[in-house]
């Protein structure tokens, strides 16, 4: 069975500083990896995904993520955080062999960006 760990419940960063949200995963075979963001009282918005190829994936709103197979990690990064990036971030994984599209989500990491 697959699983996702987001080791930090909350990440605090000052505006303009780099932002990193950590994610590690466990899955049989090759993983498909996803990052989503959730603003208060809203659904989840897709940020980016890793399927295959280049380990550095670029997504929406200036976010990127690096796939590291040896460390089974898929950390989300942004070079310069904005106050508007304050939200709840979810990492998700699915085995490439699963054709039914079910995702396993992490517990989420609350990001707080202070002015």
């Amino acid at each position: 069975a697959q699983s996702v760990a987001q080791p930090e419940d909350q990440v605090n960063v000052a505006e303009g500083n780099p932002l990193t949200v950590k994610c590690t995963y466990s899955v049989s075979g090759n993983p498909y990896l996803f990052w989503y963001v959730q603003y208060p009282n809203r659904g989840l918005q897709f940020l980016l995904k890793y399927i295959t190829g280049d380990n550095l994936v670029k997504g929406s709103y200036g976010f990127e993520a690096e796939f590291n197979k040896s460390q089974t990690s898929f950390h989300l990064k942004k070079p310069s955080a904005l106050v508007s990036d304050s939200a709840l971030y979810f990492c998700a994984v699915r085995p490439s062999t699963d054709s039914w599209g079910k995702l396993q989500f992490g517990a989420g990491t609350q990001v707080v960006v202070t002015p």
Partner: protein
Amino acid sequence: EADIYQTPRYLVIGTGKKITLECSQTMGHDKMYWYQQDPGMELHLIHYSYGVNSTEKGDLSSESTVSRIRTEHFPLTLESARPSHTSQYLCASSGTGTVSYNEQFFGPGTRLTVL
């Protein structure tokens, strides 16, 4: 514009009432999902569907039921609401066919409160 819709956005109801949460998508997706999420917490898959007349229970046991009579429509029903059903319910859809690397698109959610 292709999108996924949920109604109502907010619902406050008394114990014992029957409720139906609506979810519709205009993207022609085969796969649809229902998640339950307490505020600021992780998502739990409660139902999913691979297509018309196909429904399966998710990882979290739920007293709700679903139906999939039309591709675009995936309503969730609670026959007798209880305070323990108070939560946010998120609907999502993804992809067509057996392609499994498509991301899921989420609706805005329904916040249910049972008194």
